[in-house]
C-alpha cells in the first residue's frame, strides 16, 4: 500500500484541496475523527502559511511506517522568503498575521513530530508526522 498525494498551493482553493486529500488519507489509515480533524487543521495551517507568506509551494501527504508504527506525514515546502528567526515563530503568542492563526507552535502540538528547516531567501520546509495509536 503506498498512499500519497501532493497538492500545489497557489490560492485559497488549494488549501481546501490539501485539507481534503489529508482527510481522505487520514481516514484510510484509520485515524479517529478527532485526529482526523487535528491532522486536517495542521495541514490547513501549513498550507495557509504558504499561501500567505510564500505565494506558492506544495503540501505533500504520505503514509509512513516506522518499526511497525503507522503514521501520516505532512511535508509543506515553498521557495518563499524563508523565516528569519525560527525561534521567534516557534514561540507562543507570536503570529505575524496578527489574526487568530494558530501558528507553528499550535501545529506542533496537534501533531506528534515536527521539524522545520528554513533559509532566508531560499524557502522553508516543514515536516510533521502524526502516529496512529
Amino acid at each position, binding site marked *: 500500500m503506498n498512499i500519497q498525494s501532493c497538492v500545489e498551493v497557489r490560492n485559497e482553493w488549494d488549501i481546501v484541496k490539501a485539507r481534503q486529500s489529508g482527510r481522505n488519507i487520514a481516514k484510510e489509515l484509520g485515524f479517529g475523527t478527532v485526529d482526523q480533524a487535528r491532522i486536517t*487543521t495542521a495541514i490547513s495551517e501549513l498550507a495557509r502559511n504558504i499561501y500567505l507568506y510564500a505565494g506558492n509551494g506544495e503540501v505533500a501527504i504520505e503514509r509512513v511506517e516506522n518499526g511497525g508504527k503507522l503514521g501520516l506525514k505532512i511535508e509543506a515546502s515553498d521557495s518563499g522568503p524563508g523565516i528569519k528567526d525560527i525561534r521567534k515563530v516557534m514561540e507562543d503568542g507570536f503570529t505575524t498575521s496578527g489574526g487568530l492563526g494558530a501558528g507553528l507552535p499550535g501545529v506542533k502540538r*496537534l501533531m506528534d513530530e515536527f521539524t522545520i528547516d528554513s533559509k532566508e531567501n531560499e524557502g522553508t520546509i516543514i515536516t510533521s508526522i502524526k502516529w496512529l495509536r
Partner: protein
Amino acid sequence: MDDRDLQYQKYKSILENYLQEQSEQTLYKGQQFSRKMIEQKISPEEAVSLHVSVLEELFPDIPQPLKNSYDFLLEMMIGYGFAYREHQSLRSRQQQLESEIEIAANMQQTLLAGDKPDVNGLDIGAISKPAQKMSGDYYHFVQDENNCMSVAIADVIGKGIPAALCMSMIKYTMDSAPEQRMQPGAVLENLNRVVEQNVDPNMFITMFYGLYDPRVHSFYYAGAGHEPGFFYDAEKDEFEELFTKGLVLGVSKKTSYQEYQRVLHGNDMVIMLSDGVTECRSSDGFIERDEIVAMIRKYIHLSAQEIVDEVYRELERLQEFELRDDFTLVILRREV
C-alpha cells in the same frame, strides 16, 4: 480498563443520569467532572468527541444529519483546542518568568541591602519598599575609618527591571570610587559621567548624597535633581526644605554639583526621601509635602527607625495598600 475507558464510563453514567432526570445535582457532578478533565489536560475537541461517542452508544439510531453536525462541531472545537493549549503553554511560561524575577529581586535585595551603620551620636532610620518586585529606589550607607558616614539615596525614573538594572550600576560605581566619598559634589559629578555614558538617554536618575562627620557634627550634601529633603531645627522646632541645585544624572556631560553644609545640633534631623513618598496618592489627590512633615512631627517623640516605619504605615493605609511608586525614607537625628 485504562484512563480513557474509565473516563468514558464515568461520563456515560453522569450523562445517562441527567437524561433520566434533569436534576441540579447531576449538573453539579458534571461540573466536577469537567474540572477533572481540565486537570487531565483534556482538550475541548476531546471533550466533544467523548460526548459524541457516548451519545452514539446510547442512541444507535441518531439521524445522519445530526451525526454530521457533530463532525462539524468537532472541527470548530479544534480551534478552541488550539487556543486552549496556547494558553496553557503561555501560563507555564509566565510562571517561569515570575520565578526568574523572584530570584532577581532576591539578588537585588542582597546587592542593595546596606546595613544601617552604628554611628556614635547619630540615630538612623531607613525604609525602602518597592512598588513592584524590583525596586528603582536605592539607599546606601557607608562608614569609613574616621567614623564618617555617607548616605546616598537615588531614584531611577521608571520602575521594575530596567530601573533595577540601572540601580546595580550606580552601586558599583559608588563602590569603585571610595576616595571621593568625602566630597558629595565630586561623587555626583563622577556618577553623572558614568550614567551619561552608559544609560539610555530616556532613563534618568536623581540622587541625593550626603556625608556626616560626627567629629564636627556637620552634614555635607549635594543633590542631582532629587526630591528635596527636610532639615529639622530642634531648637526652633521648625522644618525647612533641604534645597540643592544640580541637574538630574545623565542629562548633560559636564555638570557640576554644588555642595552644601549644615551643622546638626542636638535633636536636629536630616530627612531624605524619594518621590514615591511625596507622590503618594490618596483618594483626595496627591499628598502634600506639608502632610509628610505633619506625619513626621506626629511621631517625632519616637526613634528615627520608628518614625520612618510609622510614616510608611500611615501612607500605605492612605493609599489603600497599593504602592504606586517605590518608596524610600531615611532619617538621621543627632542624639543629645
